[in-house]
């Protein structure tokens, strides 16, 4: 596809071409948070209901939670990096990204991705923390 002028007559570089993927990217990190959260909850529920019993040890489940957490944090970090790159596109990391240009739209979506990744990172840690302290299914 060749460059196409937008409604103001400005040309949009190919890399900045609008696609739904860039909108979904902002939801990627929270989605990882949600998947991590559900996995932790379901693992503990099945572990306590069907494997260890109500007074059993949680050790196996805690290891699994640790593994999920490491994977989730790594995934979120990758998304955060991609968000940072978009946010600083063209060497200009100046918020509020409020101009009516494809560049600022690209930077804005990157910044929103970065912020949501940061929140998801912290929230994932908060959700995982009980596994550090709770040792049994009681």
């Amino acid at each position, binding site marked *: 596809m060749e460059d196409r002028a937008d409604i*103001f007559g400005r040309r949009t570089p190919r890399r900045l071409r609008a696609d739904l993927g860039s*909108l979904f990217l902002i939801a990627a990190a929270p989605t990882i948070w949600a998947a991590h959260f559900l996995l932790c909850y379901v693992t503990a529920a099945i572990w306590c209901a069907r494997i260890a019993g109500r007074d059993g040890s949680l050790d196996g489940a805690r290891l699994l939670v640790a593994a999920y957490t490491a994977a989730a944090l790594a995934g979120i970090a990758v998304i955060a990096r991609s968000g940072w790159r978009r946010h600083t596109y063209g060497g200009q990391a100046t918020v509020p990204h*409020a101009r*009516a240009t*494809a560049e600022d739209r690209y930077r804005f979506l990157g910044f929103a991705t970065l912020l949501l990744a940061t929140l998801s990172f912290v929230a994932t840690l908060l959700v995982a923390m009980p596994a550090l302290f*709770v040792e049994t299914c009681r």
Partner: protein
Amino acid sequence: MSTDEEIRRGQEERLAAAWATPKGWRYWSAVNNSEVGLWYTIVAFVFFLFAGVLALMMRAQLAVPDNDLLSADLYNQVFTLHGSVMMFLFGVPIFEAFSILIMPQMLAARDLPFPRLSAYGFWSFLIGGTFVCGSIFFGAAPKGGWFMYPPLTTEYQDDIGVDVWLLGLSFIELASIAAAVELIVGILKCRPPGMRINMMPLYAWYILVVAAMILFAFPPLIAGDLLFEMERAFDWPFFDVERGGDPLLWQHLFWIFGHPEVYIIFLPAIALVATMVPTFARRPLVGYSWIVLAAVGTGFISFGLWVHHMYTTGLPAISLGFFSGASVAVAIPTGVQIFCFIATVLVGRAVASVPMLFVSGALAVFVMGGLTGVMVALAPFDFQVHDSYFIVAHLHYVLVGGVVLPVLGGIHYFFPFVASKKLSDSLGRVSFWLVFAGFNLAFFPMHISGLRGMPRRVFTYPEGYGWDVLNLLSSIGALILAAGFLVFLVDIVKTVAFGSISERNPWQAGTMEWLPTIPNPAWGVRTVPLVESRYPLWDQKDIVATYDRGGFFLPDAEEGKRETLVTGTIDAEPLQCLRVPGPTWLTHVAAAGTGGVFIFSTFHWWWMAIASGLVGLGFVLAWLWTGTATIPEKPEKDVGLGVTLPLYASGPKSVGWWAMFITMLGDMAAFSGLVFGYYFFWTIHENFPPEGTVGPGWRWPVLALALLLAAWALTLAARILNGRGHRTGFFVALPLAMALAVAGALALAAGPWFTGLDPTVNSYAATVWVLVVWTNFHLAAGLLMQGYCIARAAVGKLTPTYDIDIHNVALYWHFAAVTAVVTVATIAGFPLVD
């Protein structure tokens, strides 16, 4: 008169004719957002006042110990209806109503893409809401609390109240989902050219997030309502422990809805704050991206909080820990937006006004509720105050601070927009201080009565427990609060009757809903502007003058049709000139017919319910047939500024395709709720399926799946064949797909039928049957759609070029196929691997 002026006058006459509001009794057939949104808002507010009167009755009863003003039974009905009405008939609908009213003008669109869907939603809301509220006048109101826990409501309450709640509110939930679909598509596809996604008003960001939340939060409750009603009406034992059911399943499904619900009603109110604060600080909101973070982040995390309503149900400590962690995490995005508001006021030049007074009060009250929220998020503290008045205090601080006060501020702010007149400043201040002081006097003491052990929902209490003075104070506070509302109502009546017309853009706001003249003609926007700023009225110098002379897009209605622009989701480039339908009575009958299904079912009048459903269905079909996917008289038209756009678009380019896609996401969420039920029972039972159960086997389900996947593939083939102009192929493939779908549905039911699975025997059989019934219901809908496409093609309303219908039906069938695969994998596959 100059030629320019003649042209302008001609344009305005044609626009006015195309968008004219019907006169006389036909006024009620209007579907335009300015009418439907207004009715919706007023009705939601009337329900709010009704629930407020119920609250006053409770406070009167509790003012003194051992009071006998209300009987225990009436008190139970009053508190149940108060909570249910506030949540379902005010909290959610008021934001949808407000958004239908103001969103199009905020996006400089003439209307939302599906005006008749809004109208259908409104009439459904009115019918369902009146049914639920009216029940108390017959002593038949629900009395199990707003969360209707079984076994209280299955074993101990066999009157009709629970059914009124389940069926009446399910009906309204459907209306809420309809409005959510409308708003999502409106925000994504009907923005003005130039309004890229980084330029969207923050109000639109919030509403987008909230509408998406509705799509995933309401359906699990509808699934739960379905299970509940199957148990009550047909004795399918989902919640009956004796037969392998579990009341906790209801609690899970209810709170998967119930906690996001709190944010579903809080975020739109905060969106109003984010709209008002920049106007009165006279500068753009600080931290636009941070607000987007807050909205999207809260949207996600709010789905990970549901078990914090179930801390005392005996779940393992580790599970409570996960939910406690998420409950603390949600305070981060919630706090971020409050800091953005405070920062905006600090760096701007804040102007004192009544809306800002309500906003300040809202923030103070909400922060207080948020802090007690973090306290109850901690499981050990919650064990102490669970089901006490401390919780009542907490939730009212959150909801009054987070919803009621911003909405009151919002009504003051938008009154000139809606009624063309400004409410009184002095009465506004009086009503604010009465509401604010009365609220705190009413609810602050409840923290203490709760800590002193007073349980919620008791209809009276003996004296001498240390609760007497606190309750009396609460009741006095409630009266003062009510007086504040009275002043507010007096102000509204006085202003509507005697107020003078407001000047244009009375608050000097920067967003586009203030661009039109006051009063605004029925066309909504004179011309769709080109947007280059987040606050176009502040930054785009000539915008008002160019707007007034019709210098942007669509300044005319040459063909006398109602038209608005469809633009790209990300960059809002113009894509299509969308024609929207005008006034109709079809939606009223469709809503009444659908309502009849739910209302007659409450009384177990099954034949009436079926007849009513058929009437509703017939009118929905008539509405689709006459008002959607209409082939235009020419392929494209000039919309102004040298842009020519198509008048018809199908597939992912059409708004209808988006609506179908979004609706089906919600449908999948409901289906997940049912599938969750199956695996939930598996985790809590030693043996699931129970020993000795054979059904449904794997042969029938696998055969069914093969037939249904073939039906799906043929539907897809029909779409492709039609697109390539193979009409014969289309007319062979689609009827064949229908035949296979019927055979598949029969085979799916044959499994549990021939293996003798009786749904009333245990929870396993009931769960298998409910998945089969759900899937077959979807197949029936799919069949109807295939038949509809054949009929449309036969009369020439569906052609290779104009093929919206078959695109949407094929899309529906993708989801129907997923439903069939998951159902078969669960009922036939899972017992084999377990």
